[in-house]
């Protein structure tokens, strides 16, 4: 095992609460009607190409990517399109979606390999792999949902030296990536290999937090057992510290390189891909299977049966909560994702999508809004900031709408990890104001660049 590494600056250590770590992945039965949002990625929503009354097959393309940063959407089930309407998704906004009345029997589109057999021969070349990733609608499944094919298209003049797999899973509670690593080890490693081929590199590094020893050992063992097949793939244990899985922090921890302010990771020769996305790429490239399902962790301290479920997209979250033992009493916060960066949702019937890594239920005690007091200038927020920013200052100047100052104080470098707010003893909503300042400052910068 490689010695444990970490990013040097800031970070916090929230309670890990990986309650569902020992729960094997269960297939979740599909509901009668599924609601598939067309905007499942960062960027433009897909254009709908089906109409009411159409019969769609499982894996059939129903929405095509619109623009460069966008991803295709496929039907997660076989059935009839009931309507194309809007649905409130986890953001709280009404977004276009395809409502499908499901048939009992799954009927897949042609060309998808159904067997569970491990396919180790990569027949496609680099360009074909990227095209396949694009066709299959694969996005970053850690929560940001950035279209993966865009990441894999290395710009002219740049070279990808490393494929880094983000298996840190530094968010408390979430265990979906961990379970996938344990149960689909070989498929995942093949995914890494495919990614390495896609960007023409012979180095692949899997970064995992040291609280997932079981996965680290299993991966090490598997790689050693098939040394020829997984040549160039390395497992890098990382210190259990949040935000170890932040893209820039991960690159720094693994390679020692710093992504320059305002630039993309490729500047450092790294392409970072999430675990679930890597597995999806394996399925897409080797089995021609589009992205229509994922593992969702349903968890919370008062949840009866925290679990990891394999869920087709479009399944309403409340059914998953039922499967985890039902909605506990006194739940005040429903969170799509983890507690540090997830979004709180006002309803429980939002559809699961490509970015739904977890559904976290919290009671008032766990998530209460505590009384804010004066800043005592303790500097803990600045110490916790992994980007070397001064959150107390950004909070103050954003509140004053002083957007010249926010820009010179690097507000745009904030990765919104929430470490500052987590650690603040005065309970100041630092990140809320920083987010506001970031949005305003970003708009000003974009307007200036357009001139």
């Amino acid at each position, binding site marked *: 095992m490689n010695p444990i590494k970490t990013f040097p600056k800031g970070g916090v250590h929230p309670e890990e609460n990986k309650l569902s770590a020992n729960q094997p992945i269960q297939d979740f039965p599909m509901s009668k009607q599924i609601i598939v949002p067309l905007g499942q990625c960062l960027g433009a929503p897909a254009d709908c190409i089906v109409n009411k009354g159409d019969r769609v097959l499982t894996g059939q393309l129903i929405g095509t990517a619109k623009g460069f940063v966008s991803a295709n959407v496929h039907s997660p089930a076989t059935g009839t399109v009931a309507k194309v309407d809007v649905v409130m998704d986890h953001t709280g906004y009404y977004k276009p979606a395809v409502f499908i009345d499901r048939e009992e029997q799954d009927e897949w589109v042609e060309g998808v390999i159904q067997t569970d057999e491990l396919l180790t021969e990569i027949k496609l070349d680099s360009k074909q792999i990227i095209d396949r990733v694009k066709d299959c609608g694969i996005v970053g499944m850690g929560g940001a949902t950035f279209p993966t094919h865009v990441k894999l298209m290395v710009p002219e003049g740049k070279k990808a030296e490393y494929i880094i797999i983000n298996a840190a899973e530094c968010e408390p509670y979430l265990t979906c990536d961990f379970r996938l690593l344990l149960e689909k080890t070989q498929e995942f490693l093949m995914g890494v290999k495919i990614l390495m081929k896609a960007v023409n590199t012979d180095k692949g590094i899997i970064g995992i937090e040291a609280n997932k020893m079981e996965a680290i050992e299993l991966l090490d063992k598997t790689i050693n057992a098939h040394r020829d097949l997984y040549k160039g793939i390395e497992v890098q244990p990382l210190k259990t510290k949040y935000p170890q899985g932040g893209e820039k922090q991960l690159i720094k921890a693994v390679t020692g390189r710093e992504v320059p302010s305002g630039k993309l990771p490729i500047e450092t020769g790294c392409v970072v891909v999430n675990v679930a996305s890597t597995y999806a790429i394996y399925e897409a490239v080797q089995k021609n299977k589009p992205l229509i399902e994922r593992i969702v962790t349903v968890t919370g301290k008062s949840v009866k049966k925290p679990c990891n479920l394999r869920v087709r997209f479009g399944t309403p979250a409340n059914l998953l909560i039922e499967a985890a033992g039902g909605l506990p009493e006194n739940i005040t916060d429903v969170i799509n994702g983890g507690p540090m960066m*997830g979004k709180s949702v006002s309803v429980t019937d939002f559809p699961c999508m490509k970015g739904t890594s977890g559904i976290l239920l919290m009671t008032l005690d766990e998530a209460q809004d505590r009384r804010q007091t004066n800043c005592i*200038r303790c*500097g803990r927020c600045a110490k916790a900031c992994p980007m070397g920013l001064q959150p107390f200052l950004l909070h103050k100047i954003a509140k004053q709408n002083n957007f010249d100052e926010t820009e010179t104080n690097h507000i745009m470098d904030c990765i919104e990890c929430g470490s500052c707010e987590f650690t603040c003893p005065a*309970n100041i909503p630092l990140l*809320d104001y920083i987010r506001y300042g970031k949005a305003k400052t970003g708009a000003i910068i974009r307007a200036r660049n357009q001139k």
Partner: protein
Amino acid sequence: MNKYTISGSPHVHSTENTQKIMYRVLLALVPALLVAIYYFGWYALRLTLVSVAACMLTEWLIQKFLIKGPLTINDGSAALTGLLLAFNVPANLPIWMAIVGSIVAIGVGKMAFGGLGKNPFNPALVGRVFMLVSFPTAMTTWPQAAPIFKAGFFTDAVTGPTPLGLLKEGGAASLDHAQFIDMVLGNRGGAFGEVCAIALLLGAIYLIARKVIDIATPLSILLTVFVFTGIFWLINPATFIAPWYHIVYGGLLLGAFFMATDMVTTPMTLQGKLLFGFGVGVITVVIRLWGAYPEGVSFAILIMNAFTPLINKAFKPKVFGVVKPAKN
């Protein structure tokens, strides 16, 4: 329909809060208080209670009737100011003077600037320096330590000079270093909170272990004082005393660990803290060796408090991924 709370991430928080921080500092000062009561009896206890109560009451009155804002009397910060203020005065100080000092500390030193977190100067030191200037005799008439088992709990203490006072008046020769152990234990004249080095260090270790204070500032202060006084001692041991006496005599330990570490009035970054500590150390030694007062820690910290905003501006953390443009 909208059943659940919508709030921005993060949805979990550390259990730390301002109140806990303040209470930990108060707890860390308990050993020093117990030693003070042991040596100075009822007078030390009485002054502490009066001063803490006066500070808390002043804050409460101002918040209730002048600001008409939220009452933060429970956050422990006013109590801490009161305790530190008491620790910095002679045990036999008339209590009305302590009340005046408390009112100045909280009223002028803290609330006039907007309350907790907004004051540029350490409130306890503002109060102390005000008293020192207003009541010079009372503030420099030091009772001698006398263990309560021998002298009795309510006995008026005999007054006498502090070690640094002796040094100022009679030079290095007037100090009897044979009693160094007594000095470390606190069996000496002086402000009643500062006398026992052991008790103060005990509290300091607790605060460092609980990560309430950063060791950088005190370390920087003590090192600066040690090196600076050491140089003069090496040059002329007949006039100047050894550096370790400088560390223990006077209020340096109390100031370094409990007042120069006040988050509100001192720099945030490591480099800033080191510079702050260096400044406090230099000014303290200059006042002790050549100034009119025998002791200068309070003044040194207050002067450096004034520089804190500038130091904070000068030493910002390094932003991730930002390379300083090369200077041409």
